[in-house]
């Protein structure tokens, strides 16, 4: 199969890859760019484990072909922050025990980041709605909601809200 050339920005770096036309964005990120923090949990675009940001918006990267990302700016979990320089959402997931096995976590963090970027003070219901496309089997979502609530508070006010 003839390959197509894709040039894009990933986590602030310029990257160029030749891919089969059928290659999904998630496959290119994982297999070609070896950014394995973005996970694949299903084959029907239901689980959200592959959520990344494309041009600032949360996208399930299994719903996009790699070639569609040509010219885009993509952020994956690796680009959100690393130990020592965690994004407040990553920090809040750690502080609030918002993860157990960790498999859904990168996608969940990316979905949550999209929410708080557009809604600085989300209600619990808004948080639950925003992450309804991301399935977690471990946490029952309780602590994920708490983590997103705290992260929004930190991003908004620079400090965690007092616990209710």
């Amino acid at each position: 199969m003839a390959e197509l050339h894709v040039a894009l920005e990933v986590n602030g770096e310029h990257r160029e890859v030749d891919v089969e036309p059928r290659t999904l964005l998630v496959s290119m990120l994982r297999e070609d760019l070896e950014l394995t923090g973005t996970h694949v949990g299903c084959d029907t675009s239901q689980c959200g484990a592959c959520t990344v940001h494309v041009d600032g918006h949360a996208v399930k990267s299994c719903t996009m072909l790699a070639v569609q990302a040509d010219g885009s700016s993509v952020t994956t979990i690796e680009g959100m922050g690393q130990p020592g320089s965690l994004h407040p959402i990553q920090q809040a997931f750690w502080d609030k025990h918002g993860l157990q096995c960790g498999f859904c976590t990168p996608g969940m963090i990316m979905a949550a980041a999209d929410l708080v970027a557009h809604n600085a003070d989300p209600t619990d219901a808004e948080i639950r709605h925003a992450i309804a496309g991301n399935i977690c089997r471990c946490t029952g979502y309780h602590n994920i909601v708490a983590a997103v609530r705290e992260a929004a508070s930190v991003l908004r006010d620079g400090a965690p809200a007092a616990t209710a």
Partner: protein
Amino acid sequence: MTADVLGKPVKRVEDPRFITGNGRYLDDIKLPAMTHMAILRSPYAHANIRSIDTSAAKAAPGVVAVFTGADIPYNPLPMAWPAGGASGIQNNINMPRVLATDSVKWTGEGVAAVVAETAAQAIDALDLINVDWEPLPAVVDTEKALEDGAPQLHENAPNNRVFDWQVGDKAGTDAAFADAEVVVSQRLVNHRLIPNPMEVRGDIGWYNPGTGEYTIWMSSQTPHIQRLLLAAFVMGVPEQKIRCISPDVGGAFGSKIFCYADMALVLFASKANGGRPVKWVEGRRESYGSTTHGRDHVTYVDVAATRDGEVKGLRVRTIANLGGRLSTIGPGVPTTLYGRILSGPYKIPAVHCLVTGVYTNTTFVDAYRGAGRPEATYVVERAMDLLADELGIDPVDVRRRNFLPPDSFPYDNPSGLLTAVNGSKIYVDSGNYEPAMDKALAMVGYADMAANKAEAKTRGKLLGVGLSTYIEVCGVAPSKWIGAVGEGWGAAMWESSNIKVHLTGKVVVTMGTQPQGQGHETTYAQIISHELGIPMDDIVVQHSDTQGTPFGYGSYGSRTSNVGTGAALKAAAKIREKARRYAAHMLEASPDDIEVDGAEYRVKGSPDKKKTIQEIAFALDLAFDTPEGMEPYLDETAYHDTPNCTFPFGTHIAVVEVDEETGNVELVRYVAVDDVGKKINPMIVDGQLHGGIAQGIGQALWEEAVYSDDGQLLSGSLLDYAMPRAAWLPNFELDETVTPSPVNALGVKGVGEAGCIASTAAVANAVNDALSPLGIRHLDMPFTAQKVWGAIEGAKGGQA
């Protein structure tokens, strides 16, 4: 002085890698020269294989090899836990082969495999394999499988019967019913579920032609057991020639306990291809046929009671669907793990349970979070509510009347784990049920529920409240039980731990248990820090690799906190003792005169004469002057066999609102008071409860594996199988009582399954309570809007 971290909500040491994309799950691993495997799976639920033509697939681009069952010299997968264990009960066993040879018994059974340069090429080539099928009639229904004239799956299993297993006192139970003032009976369906860990299963097999050694990376809860099973039972390879590694495991919930065909297949394929590694990762839809399902019981329950609600007898007849062939411990789950706790927290003098296992043309069924205990809890908790309904007594009062009093323990339950080896018994270790229930009732405002129902009615909503007062059995398994004739598999089930205090004072702990998200690297480090007085930051906990960790049975059945920590505690005690003896040597004192306080080893009466454990390790690890009989290095291994199981308990209360117009069920509140004994890390305990609660709610409200009559899985993808979503659940309201377990030194019990053991019954009781004003006595799960609407319309005499 190192701060004591035991019992504290310490943040998890695992998390920095998971929140930054630095976890390493199976599919994240790439090896040099790695190839990819795809498996052709049966499109039929029941068919004979007349022939398989792989020639076109072998010629396809990128294809390295194509295999069918005829190519594989291995044995079928092993059966580790027949019903009744080694008692000699007839079990008509049919195990999967690595690839099916003559026939297939469910949609998704593997029949051929393609190995190719890329995963896409392997999948593409599957379409070029031509199987000449002879389709056969199929049976998928749990009860219909036993009927005369049903399609037959296996020659050695007439009427598709796998076994008949019974427990309890039949004569005593019959007598209780003969004398009963009231008898309540109900058919209960505990429907089939799909475990759905977010990471599917997969393996990478690598055969090294230079050494003759096989290495397999597997997403598994049990790497040590898999090495044993693959070596001794499936492949016929010496055990020391196989190494099993579980990398980060993205959830499991029981489904990754078992020995799967693909494990042997990737190793076979790697050897056949001259040692090129072979990776196989199941797709989500594929996983529904290649990884086990859970539950799937049909039960007839009868309760004998007095008119004032005292239960005198419990009779249970269950048919358990085990699928087309058996999974590793499939028969053990609906028997020992189910029948033996049917009486729950209640003092029921006579219990009898008969379980029949059946084959159907469905995916094999095995342990799924709770494994038998949610099914048992569902039976007894629905039975309590049905009895309350029959007698016009509040479900709370029926429970209160029948609870075992707190002075009952240790308690021999009547269907219970009484099997004795040399006279020793397994007993319910502890309990104090009313305080937990009272606390939950206060939290939910139970006294206000009548008013709340009236208020909801004005909004067109039927409010229901449901209790589940559960007990759990954790910590499989005391060897005297699991090794007992008539019960287990005739083998021990201890756990293991090795602790090394290296000469820099840093500690490496290796465990035989295997986490899948539970945070073992944190909780074991908390325990070892507490025991040795060494900061957590100086301790690393390692697991998951048969090379470098002591043999262990893995993590499932909420066993790690009872059994695994016991091993860690013993190893730490051995470390302390050896350090004490070497401190005496260093301080020129008698070992009896050395007192230990955290990390400090002091001479009694001379507090200035002391050494820290770090100083002792440095000296002992380099020692050239050890006392007579003492070996160098602060390095100890321990094995721990728990003397008994532990029995968490609690009360969960669900409040639901059913929309009378649409049948939609909304879970509006969820209150849980759990007693899991003492806690190593309360934050992690709460997280386990949250997740378990959500899974059990999922069963009650949404999740169901549905087959068509001809055996096609209609809920065959995540589009069709309804996993709980964040927007469908409320925040959970948790509290505790603390009754330490007397079984282990920490007083812990285990918490991995408690949430899901309790919650399904609580929600089911709540929905049935909501519907009871319409005259609906019992509705089976899951309570989808369509089903509930139909029941409401039916009750109102409308056209459902």
